[in-house]
């Protein structure tokens, strides 16, 4: 890294803007973060219930395929033919007996082993592979796989700690709160391309400070307020974090004079959108960010995985997989689908976020030499019992700096 990549001396209370646009930084992130020692979310088991079912997805920007084999193992392989690099799988989801690259029909089993090469012995004794060409040496590259309660993670690194240790006890408890071993049911997908650096998405979900200010909708309907009982939690490394809030008794207070956006007497004409039922113990909303590519959303009864796929320094795809449980009754499914209106590319709430992330990128991109201020709630990072803090973002960058050696 050149001299222009010097982190401000204030530490993580300053975020230099070059991290959002510099191609060298982006390349290093791909290598050290997404292809490094990290468990990346790739799929829900409910998306591939039967042997042969596959899902095409990405880790960072690298295409991979997740597939269930005949022994019920889940394999994750690079979506790149071992021959000439063709991205052989082109469908989001499907079912196959084997994978065949269309270019020269090299064929792989569901574990990624190469099982067929046309004209391997030549045609009419002409051509063919060298006699010592061994299929065993030319399979698809396999990634490490970890599964827990129906959720699949993969890693390019080979000697990674188990998933449970990787999460740490506090994040594992929050994970198990939603993924308690019950069978999941996929409700549908949503995909959006946001013209912003991927880290801005994580910052957004690690920042409870903005929610009661930017999201007029949430505030107006009493879904979220700065004086609501809440807390932020992190793992020991700072890489994972969670914003947690629950319902309490709030009155209109003087603190709310700060929220210019508060609209009084604002009522929905159709209130069915906002009729959640208590489903999980204690907390109403838990937004968990798991390094390096996953946000788990539990906003009342709407549950979703938001998977981050990087598309260069200045864009990311957010792939949403909404789900419920196989034993949900019709009312619960309807509730989840209605509350899904809050989130996604057309979400009453998340529209604000995707728009603001774009505004961020168009501010930080042209000013790489400047830095942002991150001092709400202090300059260090620790768990807090309130939401007036940027602690979780500082924690993320403390870990980021270590991994990136910045």
């Amino acid at each position, binding site marked *: 890294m050149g001299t222009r990549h010097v982190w401000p001396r204030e530490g993580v209370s300053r975020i230099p803007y070059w991290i959002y646009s510099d191609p060298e930084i982006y390349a290093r992130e791909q290598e050290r973060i997404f292809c490094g020692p990290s468990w990346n979310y790739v799929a829900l088991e409910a998306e591939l219930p039967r042997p042969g079912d596959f899902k095409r997805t990405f880790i960072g920007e690298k295409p991979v395929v997740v597939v269930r084999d005949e022994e019920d193992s889940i394999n994750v392989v690079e979506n790149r033919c071992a021959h000439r690099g063709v991205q052989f799988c082109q469908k989001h989801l499907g079912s196959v007996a084997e994978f065949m690259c269309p270019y020269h029909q090299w064929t792989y089993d569901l574990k990624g082993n190469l099982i067929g090469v046309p004209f391997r012995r030549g045609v009419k004794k002409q051509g063919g592979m060298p006699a010592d060409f061994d299929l065993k040496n030319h399979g698809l590259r396999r990634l490490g796989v970890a599964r827990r309660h129906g959720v699949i993670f993969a890693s390019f690194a080979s000697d990674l700690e188990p998933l449970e240790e990787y999460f740490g006890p506090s994040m594992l408890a929050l994970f198990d709160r939603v993924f308690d071993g019950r069978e999941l049911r996929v409700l549908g997908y949503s995909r959006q391309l946001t013209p912003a650096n991927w880290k801005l998405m994580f910052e957004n979900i690690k920042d409870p400070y903005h929610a009661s200010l930017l999201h007029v909708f949430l505030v107006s309907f009493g879904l979220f307020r700065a004086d609501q009982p809440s807390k932020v939690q992190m793992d020991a490394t700072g890489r994972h974090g969670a914003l947690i809030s629950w319902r309490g008794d709030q009155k209109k207070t003087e603190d709310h004079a700060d929220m210019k956006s508060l609209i009084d007497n604002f009522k929905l004409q159709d209130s069915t959108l906002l009729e959640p039922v208590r489903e999980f113990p204690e907390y109403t909303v838990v937004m968990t960010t798991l390094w390096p590519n996953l946000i788990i959303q539990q906003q009342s009864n709407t549950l979703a995985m938001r998977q981050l796929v990087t598309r260069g320094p200045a864009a990311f795809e957010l792939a949403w997989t909404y789900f419920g449980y196989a034993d949900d009754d019709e009312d619960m499914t309807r509730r989840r*689908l209605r509350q899904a209106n809050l989130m996604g590319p057309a979400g009453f709430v998340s529209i604000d976020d995707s728009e603001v992330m774009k505004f961020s990128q168009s501010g930080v991109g042209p000013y790489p030499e400047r830095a942002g201020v991150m001092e709400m709630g202090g300059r260090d990072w620790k768990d807090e019992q309130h939401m007036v803090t940027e602690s979780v973002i500082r924690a993320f960058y403390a870990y980021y700096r270590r991994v990136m050696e910045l």
Partner: protein
Amino acid sequence: MSAAKRYLTLNSRDLRLELEELYAAYTACLDEERFEEWPEFFVEHCLYKIVPRENFERGLPLATWLCESKGYLADRVTAIRKTAVYAPRYVRRMVSGVRVLGWNDGMLEVRANYVALETLQDELTRVFNTGQYRDKLVVEDGRLKFKEKLCIFDSLLVPNSLIYPL
């Protein structure tokens, strides 16, 4: 003759003209951002959904945008006007290939292609969303209104945010 009956007895050419008028009025209302008038194209108990084609084809129930009543539509308008934060934009909708499938259970089933073009400041106009309308219309107050309007979109990767109706 009642209005409903009048529609039922229209020959196909006249019905097509009626539909052309309707879709022109609908898109003009949205293109000109007269969003407050938008719910008036629907009956009280209506269904309006914008659905990624992949969900529709797999039978997955999730919609990107779901309104289950006229009140719901009005709530979306309130959000557009009062709560949502977004960059200024123009959206222009083109409807073509309007096809009448026929009357079923007192509802006129219509399919059409649509394209929505989006223009943001500092950016060239782009195809923002394209897909198929799958509509069910009924006669109310002497005119055709949407009982159900599904926008099944091909453009799965939504360019950032979907703010205005389609």
